């Protein structure tokens, strides 16, 4: 080479540079907007990715993916993993891991099934279908989950055994216990009220809120969101701190409220399946109109449970000392100890919380299946950890958000459900989900390096 005309080189270089500057100056208002909105860019990226996934599947599936029915199913299918992912965020943030969640879920689901299908009705002789059965089962399940999760946490925190080892042991022990006392048998059927927790259908009872309660839930959540925004703005005003621009505040409020009401709208656009609706009409003496009967299903109970869990865990993580300590421990365990934080107790509590969330998910999964089976929750730990990680939780500790993990769970389930819709087989699904997992974390690492 070397014979390049100087003019050529500069002619090549100049447009390239000006192209880059054009892009960055074109993007400047966008980044400016993002900054004044004070939204996590990672969160925006995930929402963007989700939209791309949804739209692509919708096109390829010929419009089936974005139907109310499929989205309703998707929400229910995501709920159980999402519920556990909220707890996994805190476990990973504190530089630990819980590999036992799938086995705990199986063990707890099995125990809860035994409670309602065998011990309460038969051993105690109280009979099936008691009105209190579902609550009692749920409360005992959650307490047991907190206890066995707490036991693992105790061994990690006070025994000094790495959580990877303790929960790997837990993975084997809890699963082994199921095989021990189940002897391969499925426990079914479950209490019909309990089944509602899974969003399933019993006769004409559907495990969902129905039309008006769904709207009420949506409106209440909207009001709560607006209230929290206003009160935090007031607080910052009182201390004369800088606050978000009013237009940004309104935009964020409108978008979040819109999203909540959008979810309700979708859930209410999904009518009871024809056969269920006909039976419902017969039972309630409703005449079936010529166009068919449209009874909105509403938000499914597993989704309601997931929303409640999200609120509670987010509150714990961001508004309570406990959460602050979990993040501090993840950021610098020595500093946390020197600040006088009871590190061991905090770690133990994160595992206890994880255990109780595994119990909630176990209730949802068994109720949905209307059975407890020996391989209930097998490999769920992988899905739960993946959801947390896709949602931005970092294995180096101290970083991760609950809403991120929920989005992560939805992204993963969207991929899987979408692929089943397209008749893609499970090994291929695994390959795709695996690649997405690595790509999400890799992309995030690249973006972060650029930003810093």
């Amino acid at each position, binding site marked *: 080479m070397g014979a390049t005309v100087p003019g050529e080189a500069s002619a090549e270089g100049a447009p390239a540079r000006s192209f880059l500057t054009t892009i960055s100056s074109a993007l400047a208002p966008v980044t400016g907007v993002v900054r004044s909105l004070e939204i996590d860019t990672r969160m925006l990226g995930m929402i963007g990715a989700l939209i791309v996934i949804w739209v692509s599947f919708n096109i390829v599936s010929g419009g089936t993916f974005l139907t109310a029915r499929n989205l309703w199913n998707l929400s229910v299918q995501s709920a159980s993993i999402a519920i556990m992912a909220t707890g996994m965020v805190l476990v990973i943030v504190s530089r630990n891991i819980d590999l036992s969640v799938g086995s705990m879920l199986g063990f707890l689901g099995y125990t809860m099934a035994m409670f309602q299908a065998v011990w309460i009705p038969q051993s105690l002789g109280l009979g099936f279908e008691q009105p209190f059965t579902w609550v009692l089962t749920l409360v005992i399940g959650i307490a047991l989950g907190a206890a066995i999760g707490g036991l693992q946490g105790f061994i990690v925190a006070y025994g000094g055994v790495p959580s990877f080892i303790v929960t790997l042991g837990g993975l084997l022990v809890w699963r082994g216990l199921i095989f021990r006392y189940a002897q391969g048998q*499925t426990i079914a059927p479950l209490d019909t009220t309990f089944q509602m927790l899974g969003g399933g259908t019993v006769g004409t009872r559907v495990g969902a809120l129905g039309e008006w309660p769904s709207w009420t839930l949506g409106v209440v959540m909207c009001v709560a969101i607006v209230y929290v925004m206003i009160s935090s703005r007031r607080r910052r005003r009182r201390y004369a701190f800088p606050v978000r621009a009013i237009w940004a505040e309104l935009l964020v409020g409108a978008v979040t409220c819109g999203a909540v009401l959008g979810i309700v709208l979708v859930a209410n656009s999904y009518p009871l399946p024809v056969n269920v609706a006909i039976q419902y009409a017969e039972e309630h003496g409703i005449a079936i109109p010529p166009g068919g009967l449209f009874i909105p299903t509403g938000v499914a109970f597993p989704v309601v449970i997931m929303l409640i869990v999200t609120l509670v865990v987010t509150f714990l993580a961001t508004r309570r000392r406990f959460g602050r300590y979990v993040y501090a421990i993840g950021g610098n365990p020595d500093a946390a100890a020197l600040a006088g934080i009871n590190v061991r107790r905090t770690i133990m509590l994160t595992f206890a919380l994880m255990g109780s969330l595994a119990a909630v998910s176990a209730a949802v999964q068994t109720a949905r299946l*209307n059975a407890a089976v020996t391989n209930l929750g097998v*490999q769920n730990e992988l899905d739960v950890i993946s959801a947390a990680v896709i949602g931005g939780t970092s294995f180096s500790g101290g970083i991760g958000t609950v809403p991120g993990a929920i989005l992560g769970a939805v992204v993963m389930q969207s991929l899987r459900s979408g692929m089943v819709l397209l008749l893609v087989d499970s090994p291929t699904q695994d390959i795709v989900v695996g690649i997405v997992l690595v790509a999400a974390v890799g992309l995030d690492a690249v973006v972060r390096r650029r930003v810093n």
Partner: protein
Amino acid sequence: MIILAQDGTAIKPAVAKAIQNGVPVIAYDRLIEDPKALYITFDNVLVGKLEAQAVFKAKGTGNFAIIKGNKADANADFLRSGMDQVIGDAVKSGAIKIVGETYTDNWDPAKAQTNMEQILTANQNKVDAVLSENDGMAGGVIAALTAQGLAGKVPVSGQDGDKAALNRVALGTQTVDVWKDARLLGKTAGEAAMQLCNNSDPSKVKGTAAFKTPGGNSLSSILLTPNPITKDNLKDVLDAGWITKADLCQGVAAGKVSVCG
């Protein structure tokens, strides 16, 4: 030595060593890829065939969904080939259309449920029959059908003699449960073991036939015949003491099923 192998290939070296040392090996219910082992099992191809026969009898044409087991498990494919013996011709002629066919990780009923939901969604509920390879997954399939008000209207197969599944057969939501009496398996294995003690050549054991494995080996095997349980012969499982009447008939309306009264 009687072995119930999780992984019939991984265990090969250990089994080969045992056989070299003159210890005869019985592969109990799970195939071991060693030509000198004696494989005793229920005929899985036959199980698949019996599952499909019962469903085919209830529904001979239309849209079929097939929920298979774990891809890594040879039984999933044996079962599927048995099913094909029944519906293969109808599929070729177009009388039966397979609108969804999936493997299920770990035979997980929850995954089977999700898969079934997606198949129903993709076909606007136009699914006329479901061939599920076992009872657990049939439970998931039926939960998905229930949500659409289709349980009992769409025939579903299964196997294992799971108590919950037998109850579903009594309730009418599951069409057939192919029952492999584990005690028959145990008895046969015990008898075979006694014979092997006298003569370690597996092919000399009574009732054996040659069996071609997917791994290309040929070994001696005893294939037992399973019993397809439908609404009409529920008496068999009761009489055998496999299940109590209370468990079998839980929730069954009076006068619907003869054994439940």
